């Protein structure tokens, strides 16, 4: 048997391959992104990036209706975008198996909220598996496809950051054979969800859940581990691992399917214990349902509803005592927040917006880091695509003078995800704001994925690169300008001019991300500081470039120093220095 050490995401991709998946579609989002990135190695799968999660799911549904197995992946908030097709897909059911892999992010390592996707399974009335390590991620992916076809339902597969990004040892199997060939079948009663058809499907959805609830009591993915017989724990996913660490003697009912719950199995298990815990991260999803069955459990009164669990947090919650570390610091430590990379093309746009005192409705991407000191030029951030609508709404209230200060800032991938709709509204309803599209040709935040404005697909094939200028003009924007953000003064001038305009205008700041994978940007020689010329004015520090450090000087004000290992030679610091202290060294 072949063994490999795989992350949860790699294991899901492998499981999809083994399950004979034909079509995979996703929009990137931490911590789910690597699922699709890892599909590329399997030639039997057509894997692609969709412009957003709704489209990704719709692509998956199409493939399923053609009797091919389809996997769709997204992060938790992506399901909000894909919820519309998801809820009706629950009614139609599937033809080829369809699995929606969703990655939650307890602790908000890289997200704007920590919503618990398990509620979606209940809300949409579809089953949800939750693996506790990479082996289960692989196995459950395979089982999820079988389940999808057996019960004629889409299936969700939920992971959390610690499952998606943890690596553990798995054994690999062969790909299944004997799946049906794709076909075109007309079946309007099942596939056309207008009221008269959908009304008939709803009772089937309810029956399906009841059948699955019974079925789930006999399945090996819901298992009881008996140890000492004194304390009982019901748990699932990564929480299972922490429960095993903290309570090695406890008996555990480990759920592989977190919705619908195997009620009889739970009743039988619970009957054995005076002390019964439900250990789960985020919402009291299992706990509430177990309580509704009339079973007394300890759950969220012991374990936090916010953030993720860890072995230590589980132990502390159980004992009620803080854990004691051998070492503790006797001084405050400086924080180390992430920042824009050296050479990031977003930097100068925020440097300008800060100087122009703009009120920036922001969006989600690497550029959200523009809210931090010293750039400090982002004032709102809600969800992908929100910046433009936010600017429109805000402008409706403001005086003409204040309206000019409002600037929406959005990345290329985010603009094509859901920003374009906001721009239509802005023009249609005669707003007067300025929109800046930060076009770095890539979806950088999540690790440099291709998008419809990149010119490449996920598989690496050349493809049409959307012409953003034309797109903006097509929805009715009359003033569209393109700037090179490496030219600091020119960028600021254009931004100022467009902010003053009492009509919708779009400024496209175009410069490839330093990290694009295909045709990568070459680093230029590092800059150095002439410490005789540096007056210690700190103007360069306002760029917030990680390559610029500050060193003490004899005169006391300090001087700038450039770390040659980090500097990529973008030259912004040279442009903002009034004393000509930055240059390229000759050695």
């Amino acid at each position, binding site marked *: 048997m072949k*063994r490999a*050490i795989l992350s949860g995401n790699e294991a899901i991709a492998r499981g999809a391959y083994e399950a004979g998946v034909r079509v995979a579609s996703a929009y990137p989002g*931490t*911590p789910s992104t690597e699922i699709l990135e890892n599909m590329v190695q399997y030639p039997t799968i057509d894997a692609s990036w969709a412009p957003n999660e709704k489209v990704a799911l719709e692509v998956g549904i199409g493939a399923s209706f053609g009797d091919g197995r389809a996997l769709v992946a997204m992060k938790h908030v992506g399901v909000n975008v894909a919820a519309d097709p998801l809820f009706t897909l629950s009614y139609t059911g599937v033809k080829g198996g369809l699995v929606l892999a969703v990655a939650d992010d307890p602790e908000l*390592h*890289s997200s704007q909220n920590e919503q618990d996707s398990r509620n979606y399974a209940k809300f949409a009335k579809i089953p949800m598996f939750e693996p506790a*390590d990479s082996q289960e991620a692989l196995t459950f992916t395979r089982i999820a496809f079988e389940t999808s076809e057996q019960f004629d339902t889409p299936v969700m597969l939920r992971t959390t*950051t*610690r499952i998606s*990004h*943890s*690596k*553990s*040892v798995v054994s690999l199997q062969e790909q299944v054979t004997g799946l049906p060939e794709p076909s075109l079948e007309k079946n309007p009663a099942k596939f056309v969800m207008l009221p008269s058809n959908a009304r008939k499907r709803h009772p089937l959805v309810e029956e399906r859940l009841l059948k699955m609830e019974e079925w789930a009591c006999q399945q090996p993915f819901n298992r009881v581990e008996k140890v000492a017989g004194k304390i009982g724990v019901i748990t699932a996913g*990564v929480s299972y*691992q*922490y429960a*095993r*660490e903290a309570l090695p003697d406890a008996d555990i009912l480990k759920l592989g399917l977190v919705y619908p719950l195997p009620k009889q199995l739970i009743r039988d298990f619970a009957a054995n214990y005076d002390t019964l815990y439900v250990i789960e991260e985020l919402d009291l999803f299992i706990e509430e349902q177990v309580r509704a069955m009339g079973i007394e459990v300890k759950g969220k009164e012991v374990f936090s509803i916010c953030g993720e669990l*860890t*072995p*230590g947090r589980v*132990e502390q919650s159980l004992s009620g005592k803080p*854990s*004691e*570390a*051998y*070492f*503790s*610091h006797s*001084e*405050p*430590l*400086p*924080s*180390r*927040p*992430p*920042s*824009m*990379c050296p050479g990031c093309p977003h930097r100068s746009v925020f440097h300008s917006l800060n100087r122009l005192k703009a009120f920036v409705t922001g969006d989600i991407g*690497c550029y959200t*880091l523009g809210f*931090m*000191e*010293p750039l400090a030029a982002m004032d709102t951030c809600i969800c992908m695509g929100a910046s433009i609508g936010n600017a429109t709404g805000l402008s409706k209230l403001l005086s003409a003078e204040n309206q000019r200060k409002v600037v929406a800032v959005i990345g290329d991938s985010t603009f094509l995800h859901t920003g374009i709709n906001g721009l239509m509204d802005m023009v249609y309803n005669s707003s007067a704001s300025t929109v800046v599209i930060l076009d770095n040709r890539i979806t950088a935040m*999540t*690790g440099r994925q291709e998008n419809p404005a990149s010119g490449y697909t996920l598989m690496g094939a050349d493809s049409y690169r959307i012409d953003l200028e034309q797109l903006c003009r097509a929805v009715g924007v009359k003033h569209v300008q393109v700037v090179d953000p490496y030219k600091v003064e020119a960028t600021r001038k254009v931004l100022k001019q467009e902010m003053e305009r009492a009509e919708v205008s779009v400024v496209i700041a175009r410069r490839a991300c330093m990290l694009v994978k295909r045709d990568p940007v070459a680093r230029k020689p590092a800059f150095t500081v002439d410490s005789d010329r540096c007056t210690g004015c700190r103007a360069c*520090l306002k760029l*917030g470039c*990680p390559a*610029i*450090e*500050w060193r003490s000087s004899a005169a006391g004000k300090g001087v700038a120093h450039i*770390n040659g*290992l980090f500097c990529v030679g973008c030259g912004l610091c040279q442009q903002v220095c009034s004393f000509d202290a930055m240059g390229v060294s000759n050695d």
Partner: protein
Amino acid sequence: MTNQVTNILISGVGGQGILLASEILSEVLMLAGFDVKKNEIHGMSQRGGSVVSHIRYGKKVYSSIIPEGQADVLLGFELLETYRCLPLVRQGGSVLTNNLQIFPPPVTLGKETYPEDIPAKISAAFPDTTLVDGLRLAAEAGNPRTVNTVLLGALSKRVDIDDTCWQQTLQKMVPKKYLEENIKAFNLGRSL
């Protein structure tokens, strides 16, 4: 039978090559026949933020996160990030740290201060502390960007695994173009 699990923590700054180092380490451990789990956060933390990677191995490993205060070995790629992670190390644990300072933005902006004398503070609490001159050894190996491999070499001495496992895994995981300098870097670290 006791299930002895060994816990290795790697910390540093996003962009220092921590992920590759921990990737190689976990492959080596799997090759040596252990159950291995490895965990770290991708995403925001990569952009110059603090990065921590957990590696656990033994006969059977449950949590991929090291229980608080139970790290046996801490490998730090940068002094402040080594220092930051000390509360996660058990009493008597080993600390290996790169002798390098990278100032975080709040320090550069003068809003917070970088602690002084970190190496002395570490070795006062953890007698088994090794200070590694990563950058110098990497330059000696032929490329200043091989610091992570030097550090991995230094760590390899604390992990009881055959040299051939390490060499085999490096061959497999390091791109051909950079293999020679990385083998050199690894050996320099290993002979510390």
